[in-house]
């Protein structure tokens, strides 16, 4: 503290002769900082309409409005955020929560108007050149306003390290590749309670998954229940739409996870594993669910096939009080699930858990009963009030190349390994196909090689028409197969099965694929006939797809069954086929060919059957 003086103050007079520090706005301008939080920008191509921005907004400044020009599709709603600058506080929480990172704040910051209605604004990135960027006259000298925004004038935008959502999922404990190729133990160990809650906590509840799920499960509800540590409540939510959680929790094709908004810039929420956690953590479904079937109506329905769609339709019908009788040729429930997915993915015990619960509701199962041979389809039609066909695709397709009859068929191979005596495998196995079944086959074959031929030099390869980027198998499957040691030969097509002198399989001659699909997108492979290679192997398994087997339906009736263009059974909105009182669902109806779509079909058909039956009475 110096001595107060009156003269020292006059030092300030020096500023009279200095240049002022004033920024002569608007003649001189200062750019806002690169991080400036101004008005919003939204890249409509990236935006999924998930609505997280509207949920996080502390001021309810964001409303989701319908955007008619956007086509809704799985993982994208036709809604876009609309901002009210009479509410917005420019905090940028919406930017930090935005899963696709489409919402950003620009460095434009002024909008002045005498009309409050102009402060409501639908941000959309528009590439505008400087000429059209200039504002209308009433904005006088300066450049921007709400209607005229520069896309390249981005300010505060999302940063992966500072997102409000957690982009990484809780890792699922798994058996290591070295260990798992030695046995058929279940590869995935399942979440513990803590892990499941942690994973469930990642969910943003935007419900994109629910729209994407064919069966429209109430995913965010059951995930919230898991988060709140109420697995029984979660199970109840699941059972509203899906009666086979133990099966689905393991092998579902996860349309939801593809749609998950977290998947855009991170890993999707492990919805399937959480479902699996729910079903595994409940010992007794009956106690947890407390579902009471409606009083019996006396109506009976025959269900052909105990696969996912058959089980589901029986479940839903039982709840409505109808008596369902399920016929299946296999010794147990699950249908294709029982034989298809290898035991390391879907153990038989899990299937039986779901089936047992369905049976406990009063559904009668007649296993080892093949319709068409053990019981006639016509009899079913006569004996029951309605018939549901959930027969699935049970016959493997063959490549029909030369000597193809020497090959094994995928389904037989899988079925024997799972519920019969395992196949004896060769040293060098070639699997034809690039789908999930091919992966299952290859990985099973690999395991069998390790089990049956320990210490020997063995090899499993796949050959697929499709190249890496078009391979129909899921990435996880491919990745896991690679980890276990399966070799891939993508973009090669089988030419012929080469036999040695003794007529044993010697290898597969392949030709290079030019393209898989024709210009119209139809499956029509073409090859470079001159590029050929020979894969050596002593065992070839064909896994190129399956087809339905309608042989049990009498030909006369078969004539009345209508099919769609894609060779699927045609059903109406009630799931009813063109045959009277015959309903259908599952792989013979839909093109997704997976369990959850089958469940969705079953739910529709159950409603249809119920409507039919109640209208009769």
């Amino acid at each position, binding site marked *: 503290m110096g001595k107060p003086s009156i003269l020292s*103050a006059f030092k*300030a007079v020096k*500023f*009279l002769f200095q240049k*002022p520090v*004033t920024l002569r706005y608007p003649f001189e301008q200062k750019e806002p900082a690169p991080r400036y939080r101004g008005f919003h920008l939204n890249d409509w191509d990236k935006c999924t309409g998930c609505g997280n921005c509207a949920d996080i907004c502390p001021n309810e400044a964001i409303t989701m409005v319908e955007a008619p020009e956007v086509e809704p599709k799985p993982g994208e709603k036709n809604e876009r955020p609309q901002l009210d600058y009479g509410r917005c506080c420019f905090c940028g929480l919406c930017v930090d929560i935005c899963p696709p990172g489409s919402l950003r704040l620009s460095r434009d910051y002024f909008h002045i108007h005498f009309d409050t209605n102009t402060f409501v604004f639908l941000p959309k990135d528009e590439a505008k050149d400087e000429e059209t960027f200039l504002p209308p006259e009433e904005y006088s000298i300066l450049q921007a306003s709400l209607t005229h925004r520069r896309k390249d004038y981005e300010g505060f935008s999302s940063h992966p390290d500072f997102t409000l959502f957690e982009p990484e999922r809780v890792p699922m404990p798994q058996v290591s590749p070295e260990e798992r190729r030695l046995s058929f133990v279940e590869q995935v160990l399942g979440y513990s309670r803590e892990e499941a809650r942690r994973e469930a906590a990642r969910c943003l509840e935007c419900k994109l998954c629910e729209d994407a799920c064919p069966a429209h499960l109430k995913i965010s509800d059951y995930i919230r229940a898991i988060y709140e540590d109420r697995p029984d409540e979660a199970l109840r939510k699941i059972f509203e739409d899906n009666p086979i959680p133990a099966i689905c929790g393991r092998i579902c094709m996860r349309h939801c996870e593809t749609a998950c908004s977290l998947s855009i810039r991170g890993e999707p929420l492990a919805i399937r594993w959480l479902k699996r956690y729910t079903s595994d953590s409940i010992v007794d479904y009956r106690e947890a669910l407390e579902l009471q079937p409606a009083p019996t109506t006396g109506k009976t329905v025959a269900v052909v096939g105990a696969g996912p769609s058959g089980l589901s339709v029986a479940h839903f019908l039982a709840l409505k009080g109808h008596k369902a009788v399920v016929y299946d040729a296999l010794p147990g429930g699950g249908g294709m699930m029982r034989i298809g997915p290898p035991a390391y993915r879907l153990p038989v015990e899990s299937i039986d858990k779901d089936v047992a619960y369905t049976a406990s509701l009063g559904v009668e199962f007649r296993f080892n009963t093949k319709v068409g041979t053990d019981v006639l389809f016509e009899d079913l039609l006569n004996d029951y009030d309605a018939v549901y066909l959930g027969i699935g695709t049970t016959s493997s397709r063959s490549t029909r190349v030369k000597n193809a009859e020497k090959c094994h068929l995928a389904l037989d191979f899988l079925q024997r390994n799972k519920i019969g005596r395992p196949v004896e495998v060769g040293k060098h196995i070639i699997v034809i196909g690039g789908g999930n079944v091919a992966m299952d086959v290859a990985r099973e074959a690999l395991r069998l090689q390790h089990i049956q031929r320990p210490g020997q030099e063995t090899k499993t390869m796949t050959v697929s028409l499709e190249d890496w980027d078009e391979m129909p198998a899921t990435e996880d499957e491919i990745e896991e197969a690679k980890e276990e040691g399966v070799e891939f030969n993508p973009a090669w097509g089988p030419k012929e099965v080469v036999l040695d002198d003794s007529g044993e399989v010697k290898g597969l001659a392949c030709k290079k694929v030019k393209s898989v699909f024709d210009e119209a997108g139809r499956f029509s492979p073409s090859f470079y006939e001159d590029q050929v290679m020979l894969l050596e192997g002593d065992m070839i398994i064909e896994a190129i797809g399956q087809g339905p087997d309608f042989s049990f339906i009498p030909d006369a009736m078969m004539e009345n069954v209508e099919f769609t263009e894609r060779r699927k059974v045609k059903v109406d909105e009630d799931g009813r086929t063109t045959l009277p009182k015959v309903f259908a669902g599952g792989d013979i109806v839909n093109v997704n060919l997976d369990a959850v779509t089958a469940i969705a079909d079953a739910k529709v058909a159950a409603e249809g059957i119920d409507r039919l039956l109640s209208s009769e009475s």
Partner: protein
Amino acid sequence: MVTRIIHIVLSPLIALVVAVFLLGLSRIVIARIHRRYGPPIYQPIIDIIRLMNQQSISHGTLFELGVVLALAGSIVTVLFIPLGGTNAPPGSYPLAHGLLCPLSSSGGLLVVIYLMLFGPVSIALGAGASENPNASIGVSRKMLLALAYEVPFLLVILAIMSHYGTISIAEIVSRQQDSAWGVFSVPLSAVAAFLILPAMLGIRPFDLVGAPQEIASGPLAEYGGRYLALLTIQNGIQVFVVIALFVNLFLGGGVNVITFLLKVFAVFLAAELVSAVLPRVRIENALRFCWTWPTGLALAQMIITVVSR
């Protein structure tokens, strides 16, 4: 006679133009010390045009009368103050002309002293009618401040009158032009007068009458529209009158209007610089200050003058 009429018209006109110019200049000078550009110099004109056209809310006849009286008083004061020129015979100064002071012969300093009090009293009258508590506080401050600077001011005037032995400003000016300026002949008075100059001008550090931050511009609190425009003009003329008086008494007036006005600007600038670097004082400090240093100096000068005579 014609010259006299021209002078009567011309001299308030000059005062008006210069006053408005001074107001503009003051804003620019202050702005520069603030390290900014400030408004254009003609900004006060814009303000006055705007205010003239604004709705004016009156609080009674007295309220309006105060404005008119204050303005009239200021304009009349101008008539008594020489605005440059000389009474010396033509030829002794180049460019010189007759003294520009319409009423130079009557009253002189004594009238000016009275008339200078007229403004504050009129405003006090008008502001009192507005019944705004801030205005009444402002008025009481204004009276106290007038009291504060009147004491040294009167002493200064007395010293000068006794030094030059006249009450005619014109006489004093021409005496200075003949011999030394007042700053040299009555230096202590000049210092004292400069010290109370901000108080007389009503600028910082003695702007406590209209302190916007304390009493919401005090007496002017209820004045708006054209009353405020007139009061702005009055304030400008008052500023001009005070500085002109200072120039006349201590800086030898001006041999012509131009030199006179240049001196006015110089003094004004000096006063503005003081105003820019000092904070506002409290009224009791103002009283104490005015009654110590300036009063002491003025008293000393008077004693010296009287003794030396």
